[in-house]
């Protein structure tokens, strides 16, 4: 904001103008905590002292920010504060308003890590029995990571094509500013319908991973409504968030593989079932073929039986025919026999042969005593009757 040379400002106006410019002077300042005092509302008032010449800077950290970082401001502790200067109107003093703080001394970082780890461990936040299983066949996945860098690409390249519904929230994952982002992201995901929450970032030094050693973040992870899967690369000291998570992997790729696992197993099972079903199906075909063959044989047998019956009928018919012909022949023989008998006994035939029949008074003459001398005898020959008289009987 430009200062108007001809204008006379009131104190308040001037401080407002200066503060408007000062808020753009964001800086990271390293120093040793001198005095540190908490106000009645929890705001922290402290001084940062230059290590070399002892120059002092008044600092304020609002309680809403201070409680995020889990760092106790104590005299002698070396920290890096990030923020911007501001003139505090009530007393006119220049103060550095710290948005974030982080420990700067390596020993302090390790000490803070160990202390928090022990504290949270005592509370049981890392206990294995409290871990929830990553659900089988997860579908809706919430991912918290930075859009920048290779991590998200590694994750997405390795997550299988199982129809995952992935929702991602871009968050800073390095530097103390990351804590605020991470907490905000988790808060957002609390309201979303997801099966599992994934927090991933690449490897780094303990210092760069300090946001993941934040107490509030650890508690959020433990209290999150669905299982939390963390994939943070690390060297020696496991980030506390990873220890608190329901499952922890060391790389984004491993996290992706873990999410794939149950689906891949399901695929294998499906393939196995498929093979089994096809094998069983094949058996059914075999059985059907056997039944079909049996049926064909039965049909053939049936056909043979019919043919046999037919052949028998033919044979019987043949015998009927033969029998009938025999019957006809016998009848003819009988007729011929009778004809012969009749012919033999035909009186006309005998007359024609020269035999004649003599009769007296209608009686056939068989003996000499059947006639008397002088009687008329009728002699029947083939073509008529000769009437003659008995002259002599010898």
């Amino acid at each position, binding site marked *: 904001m430009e200062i108007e040379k001809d204008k006379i400002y009131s104190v308040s106006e001037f401080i407002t103008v200066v503060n408007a410019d000062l808020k753009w002077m964001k800086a990271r300042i390293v120093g040793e905590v001198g005095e540190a005092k908490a106000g009645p509302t929890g705001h922290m008032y402290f001084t940062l002292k230059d290590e070399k010449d002892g120059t002092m800077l008044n600092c304020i950290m609002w309680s809403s920010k201070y409680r995020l970082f889990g760092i106790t401001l104590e005299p002698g502790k070396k920290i890096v504060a990030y923020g911007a200067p501001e003139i505090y109107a009530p007393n006119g003093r220049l103060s550095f308003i710290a948005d974030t703080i982080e420990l700067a001394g390596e020993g302090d970082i390790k000490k803070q890590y160990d202390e928090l780890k022990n504290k949270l461990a005592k509370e049981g936040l890392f206990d294995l029995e409290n871990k929830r299983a990553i659900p089988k066949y997860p579908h809706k996945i919430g991912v918290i990571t930075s859009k920048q860098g290779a991590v998200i690409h590694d994750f997405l390249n390795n997550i299988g094509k199982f129809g995952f519904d992935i929702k991602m929230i871009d968050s800073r994952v390095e530097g103390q500013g990351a804590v605020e982002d991470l907490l905000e992201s988790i808060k957002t995901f609390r309201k979303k319908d997801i099966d599992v929450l994934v927090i991933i970032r690449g490897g780094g030094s303990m210092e760069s991973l300090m946001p993941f050693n934040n107490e509030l973040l650890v508690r959020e992870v433990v209290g999150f409504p669905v299982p939390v899967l963390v994939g943070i690369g690390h060297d020696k000291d496991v980030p506390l968030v990873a220890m608190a998570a329901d499952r922890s992997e060391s790389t984004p790729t491993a996290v992706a593989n873990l999410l794939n696992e149950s689906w891949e197993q399901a695929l294998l099972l499906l393939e196995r079932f498929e093979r089994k079903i096809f094998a069983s199906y094949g058996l059914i075909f075999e059985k059907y073929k056997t039944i079909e063959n049996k049926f064909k044989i039965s049909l053939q047998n049936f056909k043979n039986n019919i043919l046999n019956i*037919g052949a028998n009928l*033919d044979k019987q*018919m043949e015998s009927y*025919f033969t029998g*009938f*012909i025999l019957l*006809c022949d016998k*009848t*003819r023989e*009988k*007729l011929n*026999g*009778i*004809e012969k*008998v*009749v012919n*033999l*006994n*035909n*009186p*006309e035939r005998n007359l024609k042969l020269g035999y004649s*029949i003599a009769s007296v008074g209608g009686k*056939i003459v068989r003996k000499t005593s059947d006639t008397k001398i002088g009687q008329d005898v009728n002699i*029947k020959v083939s073509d008529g009757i000769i009437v003659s008289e008995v002259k002599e009987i010898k």
Partner: protein
Amino acid sequence: MAKETNNLNNNLKKLSEISDWFDNREEVDVEEGLAKVKEAVVLIKESKERLKQIENEFEEIKKEVEAKDDGK
């Protein structure tokens, strides 16, 4: 057909009786014998014709049956 078949049977029966009559005769009754002969001749002729007829019918049936068998 049944009537004709019966006629053949009857004819055969009658012819048998005539045959027996001749076989068992003690006296020759020329007139009766002639009458029998005449009757027998007619019966024999009829019977032979009927027999021939039956045989022809049988041949027809046989042919029909064999034609059916060939067409199987």
